[in-house]
């Protein structure tokens, strides 16, 4: 647990050692599963962001001679690692580009919803009163509908498409940040030093900025990690229902929906995108759990 505070170690290490310490910091003590998940996440990042730069991937190029061909092959100097889909497009390229788009979307959703959610939670917790009541009612309404249903409804209103699906998922994932930040803020506000600071006439906004916000960092990081996996899952589900990314976009959920028709003739088209979704979601969940245990051992199963 001292991992985070160890950033304030004496600064006379050499650069190399510093780097090593930082890498060490990323990993978890006594939690091989979480470390494994972390490695997979790094691998995913590499696949999503580096592979498309190194290899010349073409997720959209069709080939009418190679419809639904499984397995590794090459034709016309194009190399197909995982076979082709119903339009003869390279499945490997589509999965990799799908990984990049899932990661992009996940990061974007987490950034926006964490930022908005944290701000709203802080305001609610620090200022209280009517504004708190308003924000809490808003989260109650959002939480009274299952997230996927609310997302579907929002998409039904805004119309299908990736942008609207992202907006929908941002909206449904905000309450988790609002709630956790608000409760941190409220408990901090009751603490003596804050009460004292207020009595010295220090503005509430300064307290918010300098005292409360830093305390929110750990829970927000945990929620962001868990929120990331939920965002990937929800976007994939919307894509699967035909309400998210539209073909020909290389989106795992939409690819899965497309592949449903070929469940008999080309099962690999069904299996592979799902495996990608599962691995991504699973690894972020594992790391999220591990982070929660690290920051607040009481919440997890007592180690």
């Amino acid at each position, binding site marked *: 647990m001292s991992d985070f505070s160890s950033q304030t170690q004496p600064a006379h290490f050499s650069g190399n050692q510093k780097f090593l310490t930082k890498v060490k910091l990323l990993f978890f003590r006594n939690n091989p*599963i979480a470390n494994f998940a972390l490695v997979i996440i790094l691998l995913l990042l590499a696949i999503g962001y580096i592979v498309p730069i190194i290899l010349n991937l073409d997720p959209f190029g069709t080939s009418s001679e190679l419809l639904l061909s499984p397995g590794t092959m090459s034709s016309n100097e194009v190399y197909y690692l995982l076979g082709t889909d119903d339009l003869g497009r390279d499945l490997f390229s589509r999965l990799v580009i799908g990984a990049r788009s899932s990661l992009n979307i996940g990061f974007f959703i987490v950034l926006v919803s964490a930022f908005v959610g944290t701000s709203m939670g802080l305001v609610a917790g620090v200022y209280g009163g009517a504004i708190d*009541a308003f924000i*809490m*009612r*808003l989260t*109650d*309404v959002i939480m*009274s*509908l*299952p*997230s*996927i*249903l609310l997302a*579907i*409804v929002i*998409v*039904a*209103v*805004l*119309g299908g498409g990736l942008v609207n699906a992202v907006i929908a998922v941002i909206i449904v994932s905000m309450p988790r940040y609002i709630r956790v930040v608000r409760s941190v803020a409220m408990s901090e506000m009751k603490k003596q030093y804050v009460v004292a600071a207020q009595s010295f006439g220090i503005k509430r906004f300064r307290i918010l900025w300098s005292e409360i916000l830093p305390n929110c960092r750990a829970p927000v990081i945990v929620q962001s990690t868990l929120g990331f*996996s939920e965002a990937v*899952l929800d976007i*994939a*589900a919307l894509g*699967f*229902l*035909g*309400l998210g990314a539209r073909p020909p976009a290389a989106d795992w*959920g939409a690819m*899965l929906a497309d592949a*449903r028709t070929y*469940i*008999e003739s080309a*099962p690999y088209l*069904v*299996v592979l*995108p*799902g495996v990608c*979704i*599962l691995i991504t*979601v*699973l690894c972020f*969940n*594992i790391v999220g*759990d591990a982070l929660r245990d690290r920051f607040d051992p009481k919440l*997890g*199963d*007592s180690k």
Partner: protein
Amino acid sequence: MNGIKHTVGIMITVICITILAFGLIRLTPGDPVLLMIGERGSDPIQYQKVATQLGLDKSITEQYQNFLSQAVQGNFGTSVVSSRPVKEELLARWPATIELGLFAMLLSLLIGIPAGIIAAVYRRRIADYVVTISSLVGYSMPIFWWGLVLILIFSVTLDLTPVSGRLDILYDIEPHTGFMLIDSLLSNAREEYQLDAFASALHHLLLPGIVMATVPIAVFARITRSSMLEVLSEDYIRTARAKGLSEFRVIMFHAFRNALIPIITIGGLFFVSTVVAGAILTETIFGWPGIGNYIVSSVYARDYPVIQACILVIGMLVIIVNMTTEYLYRLVNPRMRH
């Protein structure tokens, strides 16, 4: 004092949900009338008729009042697709979803809780790791894919389970309750026919039930495990063991009974949203004729009265279940009052 504040809060949430449901049709881009008629209708008379039918010619506040007073009576207007009352359409589909939901809940309790207990008892041994890892996987499962994989294995490849539907098509069962398991036994046919129909209904429930139960199993296993771990470290368990009681008795009658409270609470809070969220995806994959499937096809068909009704009904249901669970929890555990 706190109670009143709480109630007012809930009331406001309820009102917000009605506004959300009502606002739906006004927020949509495109002309709702044309959405319904499609490429075939550009006749002005027809257009006007549909517009009037939707009440689009009145003022917004009037429409909202109208909407509320009708909704309170359980009257959600008529479906655009079928021109039948939405209430009837929903009532006809609820039993399928409830039957599947209850079956899935049963599965998740029967599998999730024992798995959690085993994991807690054999902590840090193979059984624990198996349960922990599989519950993590289950919790992260994209169930729309999981359903397809199970269909691929059990229906397409092994030919063990039916592909879709609630009952083999050859059984002609008159609908009494809408629950296939019950209706099959109530039908006035020979006993053999009844039992075969019952088996067929159960057979059809199996795969969708497993898919829908996947996430809840994982959740129950996790909660049970951590709640049991907490209880097992308490003094009275050590006392019970010291008294020489058998390990099974200690675990089941002393530990598990006390671990049950959080399990029930979280289970309750979890129930409606899991059933509905699971239903939407599971029913779509298995062609299960329930509410989830209906919501999705209504979104495709832009059948707004139906979507409105679903938001209202499900929102209210979640609120009611949450209130009940909270109330029960406070009854059982007075310390929670603050």
